[in-house]
């Protein structure tokens, strides 16, 4: 069983809407993977997230989490413990008035032994580098810090997969950077599968796999290299490629040979430097 989440021909329509929000989506997410889901507003990416832990149930098709059907009501809490979810607005997902008590909320609901809760809470807060703030009041923290507390609250439930539903959308650039660093660490060191839903292209670059959604369907699926090389297709979906990728494609159009797709600033700098060297020599 190496896929943790499996969508099979899933259709979903909101009650008050005529159009499908998710249209015939089949998708498999591998254990330990870091997947970015891209799409403009209303493309169905948030609905996709809510389908993964049976907050929403599909009208057609089946979704399996670790082999458990999300429509099976007896497994609903097992599924939610397996797939943790972080939402967009940090204020609306913090329940308690003290950071550590909020992080403890999940394990408390699961009926974990008090001593173990304490250990889990401390470990989770250390993992997101918020341990010094454990006694603080959440409303006095910055957006990025609040969001890290929310992530800690999910980690304390020891999930195998974390779905972040536009978790960086309301943060300033620094908060976004911190969140990205945190989830990368969770993915690499704790082996937690990450599904990262966003509309910031630059954030999708650090994923292993990028899925692009448009009009309730998956229109692209591949490595960041593959997806971002198709600038035209992305434009059609109402998305931009990362700035450095766009720059490198312009340079290529001008007749300079570029060996591969440029995704990060460092790569771009190296590429420009090497071109300049060639020009000089």
């Amino acid at each position, binding site marked *: 069983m190496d896929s943790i989440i499996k969508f099979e021909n899933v259709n979903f329509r909101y009650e008050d809407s005529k159009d499908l929000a998710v249209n015939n989506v089949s998708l498999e997410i591998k254990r330990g993977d870091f997947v970015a889901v891209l799409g403009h507003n209303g493309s169905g990416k948030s609905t996709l997230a*809510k389908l993964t*832990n049976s*907050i929403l149930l599909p009208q057609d098709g089946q979704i399996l989490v670790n082999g458990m059907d999300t429509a099976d009501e007896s497994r609903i*809490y097992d599924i*939610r*413990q397996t797939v*943790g*979810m972080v*939402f967009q*607005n940090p*204020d*609306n*997902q*913090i*329940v*308690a*008035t*003290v950071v*550590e*008590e909020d992080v*403890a*909320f*999940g*394990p*408390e*609901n*699961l*009926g*974990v*032994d*008090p001593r173990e*809760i*304490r250990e889990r*809470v401390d470990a989770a807060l250390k993992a997101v580098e918020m341990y010094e703030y454990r*006694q603080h*009041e*959440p*409303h006095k923290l910055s957006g990025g810090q609040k969001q890290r507390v929310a992530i800690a*609250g*999910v980690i304390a*439930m020891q999930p195998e997969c974390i779905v972040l539903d536009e978790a960086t959308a309301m943060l300033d650039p620094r908060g976004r950077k911190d969140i990205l660093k945190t989830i990368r660490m969770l993915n690499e060191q704790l082996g937690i599968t990450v599904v990262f839903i966003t509309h910031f292209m630059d954030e999708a670059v650090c994923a292993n796999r990028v899925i692009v959604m448009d009009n309730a369907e998956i229109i692209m699926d591949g490595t960041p290299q593959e997806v971002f090389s198709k600038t035209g297709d992305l434009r059609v979906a109402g998305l931009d490629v990362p700035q450095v990728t766009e720059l490198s494609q312009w340079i290529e159009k001008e007749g300079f040979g570029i060996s591969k797709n440029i995704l990060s600033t460092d790569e771009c700098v190296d590429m420009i430097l090497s071109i300049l060297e060639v020009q000089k020599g």
Partner: protein
Amino acid sequence: MIKDITIGQFFPGKSMVHRLDPRVKLILTMTFIITIFLCKNFFALGIMLFSLILIIISSKISIKLILRGIKPLLFIIVFTAFLNIFFMSTGEVLLEYKFIVVTTGGVFTAIFMAIRIISLIIASSLLTYTTSPTMITDGIERLLSPLKFMKNGVHTVAMMMTIALRFIPTLIEEFDKITNAQKARGANLETGSLVQRAKALIPIFVPLFITSFRRAYELAFAMECRCYQGGEGRTRMKQMKTGLIDIYGLAFMAVILGAVIFLNYSYTHVI
């Protein structure tokens, strides 16, 4: 102005008062408040005031903070005291001007009432200053747990209180934001008659209500995602254990109660 309200806030610490079991602290606070009402003379009230000062010192909460908590209620205190001065007519007459008569009895009652109200406020705010809201609501939940037949109801109410307290600062922030946004659009909130000013608040409260509903909806989602399923089968990270310190607290309270009852009977005619 709204930000001045300190009642309900929690200031973490490790003092004796902080370490008391929340259940014991709740009982002690209630007993303390009842005892304040039992006081019939200045000697008894003096004991209460003295023990209150002892509690403040041992809680290591700054006096400044406690005074700040009284400030928003100062008007009510002064007003009550004022009424007492003019409407009590026992004792010697100190001042007489047309229909206004000030007597020693009136002045004493006024001072007595003021001290009583201030001690009430301090005692109850000390509870929230030294106990996290979650612990208070947990404490209430556990104290009421003998009401087993409605236990889930008790848990639900406790959970609601926790969330309400959690969202007070968030809503205050939101209120300020909306007020500023409406002012930037030319809303006039400061001038005009009372009715006009009340009407001017409508464009602030409508968006506040709408966002609150959305918040509630999202919060419910988030709680579901974190496997919230009511009070059944729930454990707590912070266990409540009564220790030596709680026995000290109860003994201290018993002594105060005894002293107040004794003084009430010893000096029946002081006030």
